[in-house]
């Protein structure tokens, strides 16, 4: 057998093994019933909210028609209407676009910055580690909601500003996870081997270490996602998240706060959407944790 075919067969073998591992993770995940239900519900929610422009007129979200105010749920208005006669169903579906996807973007930004900061801290150690970790300590010394509130106070209201505020509050947690994971790998042979081949620090971190620490990072990201959606709703409720009249689940609840006594569905329905979304995400997060790292708990 010549060298070329040998290398090719080795490559093939490697590919097969890689597929095998992912296959095992998928199998373990699929065995978890709650996680599969969570995934199913979340996908339906996301597809419904994202495809809304195709089947639901955005005008329903903002159109005020006082004659139609406070209509109970019916076939014309599935979830009823609010004090301005706006259709609650349309507001919740369009609001989901922000509540769900702003959460995803926030966690993704925090993930990128967390990998950069935590990776550097864990890989280089010493002064770099000290500076980055003290910075994280400082950010963690106040509750995340308070930190986000202050950043919103500084930057002003708006979608992008809220995303920044929420991501900053998430960074320390992500950075810590990544740092801990990278530190366990720092002394291992394959890292030394890569270094002796002349790989740069960036290459070692991104090409060799990152794939090995992806498990705990994904777990951290998924478990942070539910909390982020709750934070978005909290900021919306306080009136410092998305500026009205753009709908968002927390904002919808706060708008209807004064009507709750006589029209409780106006507060109950959007709240249930938050609960269902967060619950599904938590199930998926737990399922992923069990699938990626069967030894780890809670």
């Amino acid at each position: 057998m010549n060298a070329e075919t040998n290398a090719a067969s080795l490559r093939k073998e490697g590919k097969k093994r890689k597929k095998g591992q992912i296959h095992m993770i998928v199998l373990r995940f699929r065995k978890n019933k709650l996680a599969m239900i969570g995934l199913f519900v979340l996908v339906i929610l996301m597809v419904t909210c994202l495809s809304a422009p195709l089947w639901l007129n955005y005008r329903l979200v903002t159109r005020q028609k006082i004659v139609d105010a406070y209509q109970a749920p019916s076939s014309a208005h599935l979830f009823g209407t609010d004090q301005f006669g706006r259709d609650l169903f349309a507001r919740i579906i369009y609001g989901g676009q922000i509540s769900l996807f702003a959460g995803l973007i926030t966690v993704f930004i925090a993930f990128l910055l967390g990998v950069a900061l935590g990776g550097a801290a864990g890989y280089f150690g010493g002064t770099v580690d000290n500076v980055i970790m003290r910075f994280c300590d400082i950010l963690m010394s106040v509750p995340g909601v308070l930190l986000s509130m202050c950043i919103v106070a500084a930057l002003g209201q708006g979608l992008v500003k809220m995303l920044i505020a929420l991501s900053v509050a998430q960074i320390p947690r992500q950075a810590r996870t990544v740092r801990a994971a990278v530190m366990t790998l720092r002394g291992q042979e394959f890292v030394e081997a890569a270094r002796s081949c002349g790989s740069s620090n960036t290459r070692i971190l991104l090409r060799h270490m990152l794939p090995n620490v992806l498990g705990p990072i994904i777990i951290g990201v998924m478990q942070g996602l539910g909390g982020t959606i709750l934070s978005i709703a909290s900021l919306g409720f306080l009136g410092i998240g998305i500026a009205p009249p753009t709908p968002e689940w927390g904002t919808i609840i706060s708008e209807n706060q004064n009507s709750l006594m006589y029209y409780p569905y106006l507060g109950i329905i959007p709240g249930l959407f938050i609960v269902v979304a967060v619950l599904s995400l938590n199930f998926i997060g737990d399922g992923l944790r069990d699938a990626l790292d069967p030894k780890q708990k809670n």
Partner: protein
Amino acid sequence: MLKYTLKRILLLVPVVIGITFLVYLVLSVSPGDPARMMLPEDATEAIVAAKREELGLNDPIVVQYLRYMGNAIQGNFGTSWYQGFDVLSEFSHRLPYTLTLATIATLVAVLIGIPAGVYSAVRHNHMPDYIITFFSLLLSAAPTFWLGMMYQLLFSLRLGWLPASGASNWKCFVLPVVSLAGGMLAGNSRMTRTWLLDIIRSDYVRTARAKGNKETVVIFKHALRNALLPVITQIGVGFSNIVGGSLVAENVYAFPGIGSFLSSAVKSKDIPIVVGCIVVVSIIVGITNLIVDLLYAVVDPRVQLGK
């Protein structure tokens, strides 16, 4: 022990300085001129400039910050820019409410969450376990402010058992405490359950059973002490989250704590209130974390503090 405590308290200082400087920096470079916002709309440029000078807004940011901290150390947190009251005296009225609320909620979360987790683990895969797990999952997925509104709707507006707002007597504390404790209670119960289930299967617990001990002795004396360690480490984080939740949920109950006036300060960009709030909360959270670490050493004799 004393040396360790002192060292930890000293370590709080750079953290508080760091977070306040960060917040001060961000708030000050942000758009919007406080002097103009404070004055009536028809104020002339000269008046605005005089106001800026009065507030010290023309100085470099570091000078402003040092002046603020110098005053803060002497107990002067400045005056609210828009409402005119002294921040410290307002805090001294409001902080006890928020602190009482957060402390009681944390205690409730610990004192109910842990036994619930134990019961759930002991009756593993039976009805009580399913019920407790179901409620834990539900509570950890619901926003605090929404739970608060739902409790208010049911217990105050519909049933009329408890007051819907205010803080005039102990009854007013019940609903805020219940809604704040929910998330941490759920976390505690799930964590106790997972760890206890893990430990119940370990060799030394089997030995304890083999010696003929009663099941209660096995659980409470042998297993629980080890299962509680990871739960205790989370109390500090839980308390911090409850304080954060309180800042939001107080708005539901018109509760006279710091949360209800912080959110209006955030909207109007009232820097003295926002920074003062950060200083106070970061100190409280720091002290709580210290207490939790000291508690940890009490529960686990293997932990030696300061080494």
